[in-house]
Protein backbone atom coordinates (compact mmCIF):
# COMPACT_ATOMS: atom_id res chain seq x y z
CA UNK A 1 0.00 0.00 0.00
CA UNK A 2 1.34 3.41 -0.95
CA UNK A 3 0.66 6.61 0.98
CA UNK A 4 0.45 9.70 -1.19
CA UNK A 5 1.76 12.81 0.54
CA UNK A 6 -0.85 15.43 -0.29
CA UNK A 7 0.62 18.21 1.79
CA UNK A 8 3.08 18.87 4.58
CA UNK A 9 3.92 21.56 7.09
CA UNK A 10 6.99 21.64 9.25
CA UNK A 11 8.36 23.79 12.03
CA UNK A 12 12.08 23.45 12.51
CA UNK A 13 15.18 25.50 13.35
CA UNK A 14 15.07 26.51 9.66
CA UNK A 15 12.58 28.90 8.07
CA UNK A 16 10.54 25.97 6.81
CA UNK A 17 7.10 26.99 8.03
CA UNK A 18 4.85 28.26 5.28
CA UNK A 19 7.40 27.45 2.59
CA UNK A 20 6.24 25.47 -0.43
CA UNK A 21 9.71 24.03 -0.88
CA UNK A 22 13.07 24.16 0.84
CA UNK A 23 13.69 27.69 2.19
CA UNK A 24 15.84 29.90 -0.01
CA UNK A 25 18.08 30.84 2.86
CA UNK A 26 19.63 28.36 5.30
CA UNK A 27 19.92 29.45 8.93
CA UNK A 28 23.37 28.48 10.22
CA UNK A 29 23.86 28.49 13.96
CA UNK A 30 27.24 29.47 15.41
CA UNK A 31 28.62 28.50 18.82
CA UNK A 32 25.41 26.83 19.98
CA UNK A 33 24.64 23.88 22.23
CA UNK A 34 21.25 23.09 20.69
CA UNK A 35 18.87 24.11 17.93
CA UNK A 36 15.39 25.48 18.63
CA UNK A 37 12.51 25.90 16.24
CA UNK A 38 11.76 29.19 14.53
CA UNK A 39 8.21 29.88 15.68
CA UNK A 40 5.45 31.36 13.53
CA UNK A 41 2.89 34.04 14.42
CA UNK A 42 0.53 31.81 16.37
CA UNK A 43 -2.35 34.27 16.32
CA UNK A 44 -2.69 33.66 12.57
CA UNK A 45 -3.80 30.12 13.40
CA UNK A 46 -4.97 29.95 17.00
CA UNK A 47 -7.36 32.20 18.94
CA UNK A 48 -5.22 33.91 21.64
CA UNK A 49 -7.78 32.95 24.32
CA UNK A 50 -7.24 29.29 23.35
CA UNK A 51 -3.49 29.65 22.81
CA UNK A 52 -2.93 31.13 26.28
CA UNK A 53 -3.29 27.68 27.82
CA UNK A 54 -1.04 25.97 25.33
CA UNK A 55 2.67 25.46 25.86
CA UNK A 56 5.11 26.18 23.05
CA UNK A 57 5.10 22.64 21.63
CA UNK A 58 1.29 22.45 21.67
CA UNK A 59 1.04 25.75 19.77
CA UNK A 60 3.67 24.55 17.29
CA UNK A 61 1.84 21.25 16.83
CA UNK A 62 -1.57 22.82 16.26
CA UNK A 63 -0.13 25.43 13.88
CA UNK A 64 1.68 22.78 11.81
CA UNK A 65 -1.37 20.55 11.65
CA UNK A 66 -3.66 23.40 10.60
CA UNK A 67 -1.15 24.64 8.03
CA UNK A 68 -0.79 21.12 6.60
CA UNK A 69 -4.57 20.84 6.25
CA UNK A 70 -4.74 24.28 4.68
CA UNK A 71 -2.03 23.46 2.13
CA UNK A 72 -3.45 20.08 1.20
CA UNK A 73 -6.97 21.49 0.89
CA UNK A 74 -8.43 18.93 3.30
CA UNK A 75 -10.38 20.52 6.12
CA UNK A 76 -11.44 17.35 7.94
CA UNK A 77 -9.03 14.39 8.11
CA UNK A 78 -10.43 10.90 8.62
CA UNK A 79 -7.87 10.27 11.35
CA UNK A 80 -5.24 12.15 13.32
CA UNK A 81 -2.10 10.11 13.99
CA UNK A 82 0.82 11.51 15.94
CA UNK A 83 4.18 10.27 17.14
CA UNK A 84 6.38 11.72 19.84
CA UNK A 85 9.40 10.41 21.66
CA UNK A 86 9.15 12.52 24.78
CA UNK A 87 5.80 14.30 24.56
CA UNK A 88 5.03 17.75 25.94
CA UNK A 89 8.15 18.14 28.06
CA UNK A 90 7.70 21.77 29.15
CA UNK A 91 4.34 21.12 30.80
CA UNK A 92 5.57 17.82 32.26
CA UNK A 93 8.48 19.65 33.87
CA UNK A 94 6.18 22.42 35.11
CA UNK A 95 3.80 19.91 36.65
CA UNK A 96 6.51 17.77 38.26
CA UNK A 97 8.30 20.92 39.50
CA UNK A 98 5.06 22.05 41.11
CA UNK A 99 4.52 18.61 42.70
CA UNK A 100 7.98 18.89 44.24
CA UNK A 101 7.86 22.57 45.29
CA UNK A 102 4.38 22.44 46.80
CA UNK A 103 4.79 19.00 48.33
CA UNK A 104 2.09 17.46 46.16
CA UNK A 105 -0.49 20.08 47.13
CA UNK A 106 -2.07 23.04 45.32
CA UNK A 107 -1.25 21.79 41.85
CA UNK A 108 -2.30 23.92 38.91
CA UNK A 109 -4.49 21.86 36.59
CA UNK A 110 -3.36 23.28 33.23
CA UNK A 111 0.22 21.91 33.08
CA UNK A 112 -1.09 18.50 34.17
CA UNK A 113 -3.79 18.46 31.49
CA UNK A 114 -1.36 19.63 28.82
CA UNK A 115 1.51 17.36 29.81
CA UNK A 116 0.10 14.16 28.35
CA UNK A 117 1.60 12.86 25.14
CA UNK A 118 -1.72 12.98 23.29
CA UNK A 119 -2.28 16.67 24.03
CA UNK A 120 -1.40 17.83 20.52
CA UNK A 121 -3.48 15.30 18.59
CA UNK A 122 -6.32 16.16 20.97
CA UNK A 123 -5.84 19.92 20.60
CA UNK A 124 -5.90 19.57 16.79
CA UNK A 125 -9.13 17.55 17.01
CA UNK A 126 -10.68 20.18 19.29
CA UNK A 127 -9.57 23.01 17.01
CA UNK A 128 -11.29 21.52 13.96
CA UNK A 129 -14.05 19.65 15.85
CA UNK A 130 -12.83 16.31 14.49
CA UNK A 131 -14.44 13.29 16.15
CA UNK A 132 -12.59 10.76 14.00
CA UNK A 133 -9.90 8.25 14.97
CA UNK A 134 -7.21 9.88 17.07
CA UNK A 135 -4.05 8.17 18.29
CA UNK A 136 -0.61 9.17 19.53
CA UNK A 137 2.33 6.77 19.55
CA UNK A 138 5.28 6.96 21.89
CA UNK A 139 8.03 4.49 21.10
CA UNK A 140 11.20 6.58 21.34
CA UNK A 141 12.89 6.44 17.91
CA UNK A 142 9.95 4.52 16.39
CA UNK A 143 7.23 6.96 17.44
CA UNK A 144 6.62 8.66 14.10
CA UNK A 145 7.06 5.38 12.26
CA UNK A 146 4.36 3.81 14.45
CA UNK A 147 1.98 6.60 13.42
CA UNK A 148 2.90 5.92 9.79
CA UNK A 149 2.35 2.17 10.23
CA UNK A 150 -1.11 3.00 11.56
CA UNK A 151 -1.69 5.22 8.52
CA UNK A 152 -0.68 2.36 6.19
CA UNK A 153 -3.12 0.02 7.96
CA UNK A 154 -5.91 2.57 7.60
CA UNK A 155 -5.17 3.08 3.90
CA UNK A 156 -4.98 -0.67 3.34
CA UNK A 157 -8.56 -0.91 4.62
CA UNK A 158 -9.80 2.16 2.84
CA UNK A 159 -7.64 4.05 0.30
CA UNK A 160 -10.19 6.85 0.13
CA UNK A 161 -9.19 8.12 3.57
CA UNK A 162 -7.23 11.30 4.21
CA UNK A 163 -5.01 10.94 7.25
CA UNK A 164 -3.22 13.65 9.16
CA UNK A 165 0.00 12.09 10.44
CA UNK A 166 2.61 14.02 12.35
CA UNK A 167 5.51 14.03 14.75
CA UNK A 168 6.69 16.39 17.43
CA UNK A 169 9.43 16.65 20.00
CA UNK A 170 10.63 19.67 21.93
CA UNK A 171 13.85 20.49 23.72
CA UNK A 172 13.79 22.20 27.09
CA UNK A 173 16.69 23.50 29.15
CA UNK A 174 16.11 20.79 31.75
CA UNK A 175 15.95 17.95 29.25
CA UNK A 176 19.07 19.30 27.55
CA UNK A 177 20.98 19.44 30.84
CA UNK A 178 19.96 15.92 31.83
CA UNK A 179 20.71 14.34 28.45
CA UNK A 180 24.00 16.25 28.20
CA UNK A 181 25.10 14.59 31.43
CA UNK A 182 24.26 11.27 29.79
CA UNK A 183 26.85 12.13 27.13
CA UNK A 184 24.41 12.41 24.25
CA UNK A 185 25.55 15.84 23.08
CA UNK A 186 28.81 17.51 22.20
CA UNK A 187 30.44 19.04 25.25
CA UNK A 188 31.57 22.12 23.34
CA UNK A 189 29.78 24.84 21.36
CA UNK A 190 29.04 23.88 17.78
CA UNK A 191 28.67 25.60 14.44
CA UNK A 192 25.77 23.72 12.89
CA UNK A 193 27.22 23.75 9.38
CA UNK A 194 30.49 22.29 10.72
CA UNK A 195 28.83 19.43 12.60
CA UNK A 196 30.78 16.79 10.70
CA UNK A 197 34.16 18.40 11.24
CA UNK A 198 34.56 17.96 14.99
CA UNK A 199 35.35 14.22 15.13
CA UNK A 200 34.05 14.05 18.69
CA UNK A 201 31.38 12.05 20.48
CA UNK A 202 27.85 13.33 20.87
CA UNK A 203 25.54 15.21 18.57
CA UNK A 204 23.72 18.53 18.40
CA UNK A 205 20.26 18.34 20.00
CA UNK A 206 17.30 19.84 18.21
CA UNK A 207 13.56 19.72 17.96
CA UNK A 208 10.78 19.89 15.41
CA UNK A 209 7.15 19.42 14.49
CA UNK A 210 5.94 18.07 11.16
CA UNK A 211 2.54 17.06 9.83
CA UNK A 212 1.71 15.26 6.60
CA UNK A 213 -1.61 14.68 4.88
CA UNK A 214 -1.60 11.12 3.59
CA UNK A 215 -4.05 9.48 1.22
CA UNK A 216 -4.36 6.23 -0.70
CA UNK A 217 -5.39 7.75 -4.02
CA UNK A 218 -3.15 9.60 -6.43
CA UNK A 219 -3.81 13.31 -6.81
CA UNK A 220 -1.62 16.36 -7.06
CA UNK A 221 0.79 15.06 -4.46
CA UNK A 222 4.26 16.03 -3.24
CA UNK A 223 5.58 12.48 -3.22
CA UNK A 224 4.69 8.90 -2.41
CA UNK A 225 5.71 7.04 0.70
CA UNK A 226 6.06 3.47 -0.50
CA UNK A 227 7.28 1.69 2.56
CA UNK A 228 8.57 2.13 6.10
CA UNK A 229 10.61 -0.40 8.07
CA UNK A 230 11.80 -0.33 11.65
CA UNK A 231 14.37 -2.60 13.28
CA UNK A 232 15.71 -2.58 16.81
CA UNK A 233 19.30 -3.00 17.97
CA UNK A 234 20.70 -4.95 15.02
CA UNK A 235 23.77 -7.09 15.66
CA UNK A 236 26.39 -5.06 13.88
CA UNK A 237 26.83 -3.74 10.38
CA UNK A 238 26.37 -7.01 8.41
CA UNK A 239 22.83 -7.35 9.74
CA UNK A 240 22.03 -3.70 8.89
CA UNK A 241 23.38 -4.14 5.37
CA UNK A 242 21.32 -7.28 4.92
CA UNK A 243 18.14 -5.54 6.17
CA UNK A 244 18.66 -2.58 3.81
CA UNK A 245 19.26 -4.94 0.90
CA UNK A 246 16.17 -7.02 1.75
CA UNK A 247 14.06 -3.86 2.21
CA UNK A 248 14.90 -2.81 -1.36
CA UNK A 249 14.38 -6.34 -2.73
CA UNK A 250 10.93 -6.48 -1.11
CA UNK A 251 10.07 -3.41 -3.16
CA UNK A 252 11.48 -4.99 -6.30
CA UNK A 253 14.45 -2.64 -6.33
CA UNK A 254 18.21 -2.76 -6.25
CA UNK A 255 20.50 -0.11 -4.75
CA UNK A 256 21.02 1.21 -8.27
CA UNK A 257 17.34 2.26 -8.37
CA UNK A 258 17.89 4.67 -5.51
CA UNK A 259 18.76 8.18 -6.70
CA UNK A 260 19.47 9.67 -3.31
CA UNK A 261 19.99 8.40 0.22
CA UNK A 262 19.05 10.75 3.07
CA UNK A 263 21.05 9.57 6.05
CA UNK A 264 20.62 10.45 9.71
CA UNK A 265 24.27 11.40 10.14
CA UNK A 266 24.42 13.50 13.30
CA UNK A 267 28.08 14.33 13.86
CA UNK A 268 28.79 11.69 16.50
CA UNK A 269 31.81 10.06 14.93
CA UNK A 270 31.16 6.71 16.63
CA UNK A 271 27.48 6.22 15.82
CA UNK A 272 27.77 7.77 12.34
CA UNK A 273 30.10 4.97 11.26
CA UNK A 274 27.28 2.78 9.99
CA UNK A 275 26.13 5.43 7.50
CA UNK A 276 29.56 5.60 5.94
CA UNK A 277 29.79 1.80 5.92
CA UNK A 278 26.53 1.65 3.96
CA UNK A 279 27.79 4.36 1.67
CA UNK A 280 30.90 2.33 0.97
CA UNK A 281 29.00 -0.97 1.00
CA UNK A 282 25.57 -1.93 -0.24
CA UNK A 283 24.60 1.63 -1.17
CA UNK A 284 27.93 2.31 -2.82
CA UNK A 285 28.05 5.12 -5.35
CA UNK A 286 24.61 6.47 -4.50
CA UNK A 287 24.53 10.22 -3.75
CA UNK A 288 24.08 10.90 -0.04
CA UNK A 289 22.37 13.78 1.74
CA UNK A 290 22.07 14.55 5.45
CA UNK A 291 19.86 16.84 7.50
CA UNK A 292 20.66 16.91 11.21
CA UNK A 293 22.83 20.03 10.92
CA UNK A 294 19.55 21.72 9.89
CA UNK A 295 17.23 20.45 12.61
CA UNK A 296 19.41 18.76 15.23
CA UNK A 297 18.95 15.31 16.72
CA UNK A 298 15.64 14.31 18.32
CA UNK A 299 13.52 11.21 18.64
CA UNK A 300 11.25 11.99 15.69
CA UNK A 301 13.83 13.67 13.44
CA UNK A 302 13.04 11.24 10.62
CA UNK A 303 9.90 13.34 10.08
CA UNK A 304 12.23 16.15 8.96
CA UNK A 305 13.91 13.68 6.58
CA UNK A 306 10.51 12.68 5.17
CA UNK A 307 9.62 16.33 4.60
CA UNK A 308 13.03 16.92 2.98
CA UNK A 309 12.59 13.90 0.71
CA UNK A 310 9.11 15.12 -0.26
CA UNK A 311 10.28 18.60 -1.28
CA UNK A 312 13.29 17.18 -3.14
CA UNK A 313 11.07 14.76 -5.09
CA UNK A 314 8.56 17.51 -5.82
CA UNK A 315 11.08 20.18 -6.84
CA UNK A 316 13.64 17.77 -8.32
CA UNK A 317 16.40 19.62 -6.59
CA UNK A 318 18.63 18.74 -3.64
CA UNK A 319 19.58 21.83 -1.60
CA UNK A 320 23.36 22.26 -1.62
CA UNK A 321 23.44 22.42 2.18
CA UNK A 322 21.97 18.91 2.38
CA UNK A 323 24.41 17.20 0.03
CA UNK A 324 27.08 15.18 1.76
CA UNK A 325 29.40 15.56 -1.22
CA UNK A 326 29.23 17.74 -4.29
CA UNK A 327 27.36 15.10 -6.25
CA UNK A 328 23.84 16.28 -7.00
CA UNK A 329 21.59 13.66 -8.56
CA UNK A 330 19.42 14.52 -11.55
CA UNK A 331 16.07 12.95 -12.38
CA UNK A 332 15.29 11.96 -8.80
CA UNK A 333 12.74 9.14 -8.83
CA UNK A 334 13.39 7.43 -5.52
CA UNK A 335 14.86 8.48 -2.19
CA UNK A 336 15.81 6.08 0.58
CA UNK A 337 15.87 7.47 4.11
CA UNK A 338 17.93 5.66 6.71
CA UNK A 339 18.14 6.93 10.26
CA UNK A 340 18.94 5.49 13.65
CA UNK A 341 18.49 6.88 17.12
CA UNK A 342 21.54 6.13 19.23
CA UNK A 343 22.04 2.81 17.41
CA UNK A 344 18.88 1.41 18.97
CA UNK A 345 15.97 2.43 16.76
CA UNK A 346 16.76 2.04 13.06
CA UNK A 347 14.29 3.17 10.38
CA UNK A 348 14.09 2.92 6.62
CA UNK A 349 11.69 4.85 4.40
CA UNK A 350 11.25 4.46 0.68
CA UNK A 351 9.84 7.55 -1.04
CA UNK A 352 9.09 8.03 -4.70
CA UNK A 353 8.31 10.79 -7.16
CA UNK A 354 4.66 11.15 -8.17
Amino acid sequence: MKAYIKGAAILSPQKTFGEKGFPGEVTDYHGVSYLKCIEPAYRDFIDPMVARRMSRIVKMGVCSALKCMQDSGISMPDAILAGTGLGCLEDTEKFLGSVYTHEEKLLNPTPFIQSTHNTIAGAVALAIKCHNYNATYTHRGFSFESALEDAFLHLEENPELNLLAGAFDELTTNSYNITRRMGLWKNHPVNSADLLNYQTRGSLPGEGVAFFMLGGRKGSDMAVLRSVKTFYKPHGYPEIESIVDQFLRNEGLTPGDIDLVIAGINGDFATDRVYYQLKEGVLGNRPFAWYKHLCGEYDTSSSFALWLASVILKDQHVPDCALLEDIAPVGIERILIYNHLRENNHVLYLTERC
Partner: protein
Amino acid sequence: MEQLIAKLKNEIIEVLNLSEMSPTDIDENAPLFVEGLGLDSIDALELIVLLEKNYGLKLGTAEEGKKVLRSVRSMAEFITENKKG
Protein backbone atom coordinates in the same frame (compact mmCIF):
# COMPACT_ATOMS: atom_id res chain seq x y z
CA MET B 1 -10.23 47.14 48.49
CA GLU B 2 -9.15 48.92 45.26
CA GLN B 3 -5.54 47.97 45.95
CA LEU B 4 -6.51 44.34 46.42
CA ILE B 5 -8.56 44.42 43.19
CA ALA B 6 -5.54 45.74 41.27
CA LYS B 7 -3.33 43.03 42.79
CA LEU B 8 -5.87 40.32 41.97
CA LYS B 9 -6.12 41.45 38.36
CA ASN B 10 -2.37 41.07 37.95
CA GLU B 11 -2.43 37.65 39.58
CA ILE B 12 -5.29 36.50 37.34
CA ILE B 13 -3.44 37.70 34.23
CA GLU B 14 -0.37 35.75 35.33
CA VAL B 15 -2.05 32.52 36.43
CA LEU B 16 -4.39 32.33 33.43
CA ASN B 17 -1.66 33.48 31.05
CA LEU B 18 -3.75 36.34 29.68
CA SER B 19 -0.64 37.90 28.21
CA GLU B 20 -2.65 39.88 25.67
CA MET B 21 -4.46 41.75 28.46
CA SER B 22 -3.58 44.48 30.91
CA PRO B 23 -5.29 45.08 34.29
CA THR B 24 -7.27 47.96 32.82
CA ASP B 25 -8.85 45.57 30.29
CA ILE B 26 -10.49 43.65 33.13
CA ASP B 27 -13.73 45.11 34.50
CA GLU B 28 -13.77 44.13 38.16
CA ASN B 29 -17.58 44.07 38.18
CA ALA B 30 -18.02 42.01 35.00
CA PRO B 31 -18.69 38.25 35.19
CA LEU B 32 -15.52 36.20 34.93
CA PHE B 33 -17.18 33.22 33.28
CA VAL B 34 -18.97 32.86 29.96
CA GLU B 35 -19.44 36.63 29.52
CA GLY B 36 -16.76 39.16 30.49
CA LEU B 37 -13.40 37.38 30.36
CA GLY B 38 -15.10 34.26 29.01
CA LEU B 39 -13.33 31.89 31.38
CA ASP B 40 -14.16 28.19 31.67
CA SER B 41 -14.07 25.37 34.20
CA ILE B 42 -10.29 24.84 33.98
CA ASP B 43 -9.83 28.54 34.73
CA ALA B 44 -12.13 28.11 37.74
CA LEU B 45 -9.76 25.45 39.08
CA GLU B 46 -6.80 27.77 38.49
CA LEU B 47 -8.57 30.55 40.44
CA ILE B 48 -9.37 28.18 43.32
CA VAL B 49 -5.68 27.22 43.46
CA LEU B 50 -4.76 30.93 43.33
CA LEU B 51 -6.99 31.74 46.34
CA GLU B 52 -5.51 28.88 48.34
CA LYS B 53 -1.90 29.40 47.33
CA ASN B 54 -1.74 33.20 47.57
CA TYR B 55 -4.30 33.90 50.32
CA GLY B 56 -4.62 30.62 52.23
CA LEU B 57 -8.37 30.55 51.57
CA LYS B 58 -10.41 27.50 50.64
CA LEU B 59 -13.85 27.50 49.07
CA GLY B 60 -16.23 25.31 51.05
CA THR B 61 -18.90 24.39 48.55
CA ALA B 62 -19.67 24.64 44.84
CA GLU B 63 -22.36 27.20 45.63
CA GLU B 64 -19.86 29.34 47.49
CA GLY B 65 -17.48 28.95 44.55
CA LYS B 66 -20.07 30.30 42.12
CA LYS B 67 -20.66 33.32 44.36
CA VAL B 68 -17.00 34.07 45.06
CA LEU B 69 -15.75 33.57 41.51
CA ARG B 70 -18.49 35.71 39.95
CA SER B 71 -16.18 38.70 39.39
CA VAL B 72 -12.85 40.15 40.48
CA ARG B 73 -14.71 42.32 42.99
CA SER B 74 -16.51 39.33 44.53
CA MET B 75 -13.18 37.56 44.87
CA ALA B 76 -11.66 40.62 46.55
CA GLU B 77 -14.65 40.86 48.91
CA PHE B 78 -14.29 37.19 49.84
CA ILE B 79 -10.59 37.69 50.57
CA THR B 80 -11.23 40.85 52.65
CA GLU B 81 -14.04 39.27 54.68
CA ASN B 82 -12.18 36.10 55.43
CA LYS B 83 -8.88 37.78 56.18
CA LYS B 84 -10.65 40.05 58.66
CA GLY B 85 -12.47 37.14 60.24
